[in-house]
């Protein structure tokens, strides 16, 4: 394993932004960190990059507990590189930016040059070597930032939202680079993202953060909602429309009219053959958008007012195989809905 986290918390003033009981990240794997804005993804990445100090708890790296001395931290940071969501470049050329980390590691000049050119080639930016870093476009900046990290041959590459704010072409390019360096150079990658399908495709393991805590790998089917006036009924507002669901009655710690996150278990959503549903809470008509293999079963992504993920066993799927584009009826029973813990 590469990281082992135990009872890790991070507070800003009195606000708890991160609270992770236990987490182990394996070496040589790609881990995706998912979760809504403000769920603590960037904070966790900063802690993993040794750029920030936790309020309490421990992080061990490669089986060793971290010493918080300046020299120990510098040594650790030379094994882990974080690529920021909005990478910033020193006001010099792309080449000089890539050279910075190598220079401070006292790598000889010919080796520096060779490694820089290799890194630029990997991200497809050889021609930008002499360009001023500030003149690069958003996608080029992201790729150049990846090259600046990769030239250092780190053991772990941390990427904060690598697919955000770039066009589809650059997203694909970054996706392939990350896949390639993990496959060929065995660099462990931990990245945060809001792009669930991409994250699922790229990562070996996905972690879902909600209000600073790990949410049992609940990757999808999490929706902000408000408890309705009827006990045990919740409403999810999408633009001007509401989706009503049945859920736990009087859950502990939940105040009336207080926003909470609902999690719908994809295994417990019932798929019906007929399309005549009542307007009861939890009865939804949706359109199939995607069907793919998932572990030993089938995953269906269906779109109604909300985007739902369903997991079916192969047998269930064979009995009632929907097609992409087909309207389906879904029943979300009360026991399929849980309320994710929130922090004050």
């Amino acid at each position, binding site marked *: 394993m590469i990281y082992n986290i135990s009872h890790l918390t991070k507070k800003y003033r009195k606000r708890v932004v991160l609270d992770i009981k236990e987490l182990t990240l394996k070496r040589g794997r790609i881990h995706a960190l998912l979760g809504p804005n403000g769920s603590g993804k960037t904070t966790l990445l*900063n802690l993993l*990059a040794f*750029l920030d100090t936790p309020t309490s708890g421990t992080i061990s790296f490669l089986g060793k507990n971290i010493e918080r001395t*300046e020299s120990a931290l*510098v040594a650790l*940071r*030379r094994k*882990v*590189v*974080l690529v*920021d969501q*909005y*990478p*910033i470049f*020193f*006001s*010099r*050329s792309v080449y000089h930016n890539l050279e*910075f*980390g190598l220079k*401070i*590691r006292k790598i000889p000049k010919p080796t520096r040059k060779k490694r820089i050119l290799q890194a630029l080639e990997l991200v497809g930016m050889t021609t930008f070597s*002499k360009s*001023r870093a500030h003149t690069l476009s958003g996608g080029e900046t992201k790729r150049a930032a990846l090259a*600046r*990290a990769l030239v*250092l041959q780190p053991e772990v590459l941390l990427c904060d939202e690598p697919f955000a704010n770039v066009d589809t072409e650059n997203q694909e390019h970054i996706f392939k680079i990350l896949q390639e360096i993990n496959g060929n150079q065995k660099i462990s990658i931990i990245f945060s993202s809001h792009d669930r399908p991409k994250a699922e495709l790229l990562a070996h393991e996905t972690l879902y953060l909600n209000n600073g805590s790990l949410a049992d790998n609940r990757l999808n089917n999490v929706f902000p909602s408000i408890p309705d006036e009827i006990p045990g009924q919740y409403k999810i507002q999408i633009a001007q429309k509401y989706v009503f669901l049945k859920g736990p009655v009087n859950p502990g710690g939940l105040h009336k009219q207080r926003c909470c996150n609902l999690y719908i278990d994809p295994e417990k959503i019932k798929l019906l053959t007929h399309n005549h549903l009542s307007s009861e809470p939890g009865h939804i008509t949706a359109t199939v958008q995607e069907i793919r293999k998932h572990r030993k079963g089938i995953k269906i992504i269906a779109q109604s007012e909300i985007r739902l993920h369903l997991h079916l066993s192969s047998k269930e799927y064979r009995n009632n195989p929907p097609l992409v584009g087909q309207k389906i009826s879904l029943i979300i029973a009360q026991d399929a809905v849980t309320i994710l813990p929130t922090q004050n």
Partner: protein
Amino acid sequence: MELLYTQQAIIIGQIILITPLLTTLTIAAVSRIDKRYRNTALTLGADRIQMAMVIFWEARFSVIAAIIAAYGRVIAEIGISMMLGGNARGFTRTMTTAMALEYDKGEFTLAVALGLILMGVAFSINMLFHLCQGRLRADDL
């Protein structure tokens, strides 16, 4: 200490005068630098000194501007030069004390001429700064 009415006394006085100004302007320049420079330098493996050098480099134009502002303040200063230097001819007479003296003597033309020279010096220094700034930007590549 026998420092009074010496050039050293003027220098020490001027340093004491501009240190707070220079410090304030430099701190303002450095604190305006994006925090990401600090984190980027650290994550690329820099220690504290190397990180400080990066920040200083990024703030270089503001730091030079602070130096120029402090220089402008010093060359136009008269109180310290007069009190600690004594305005001794050929020894501790500065442009500003010479101007004050000529004004007191009623030599307004000479006083104004000295003032214009002083303005010219300040202007040239500013021009030089702007030229250097352009050159440094071009040398970034």
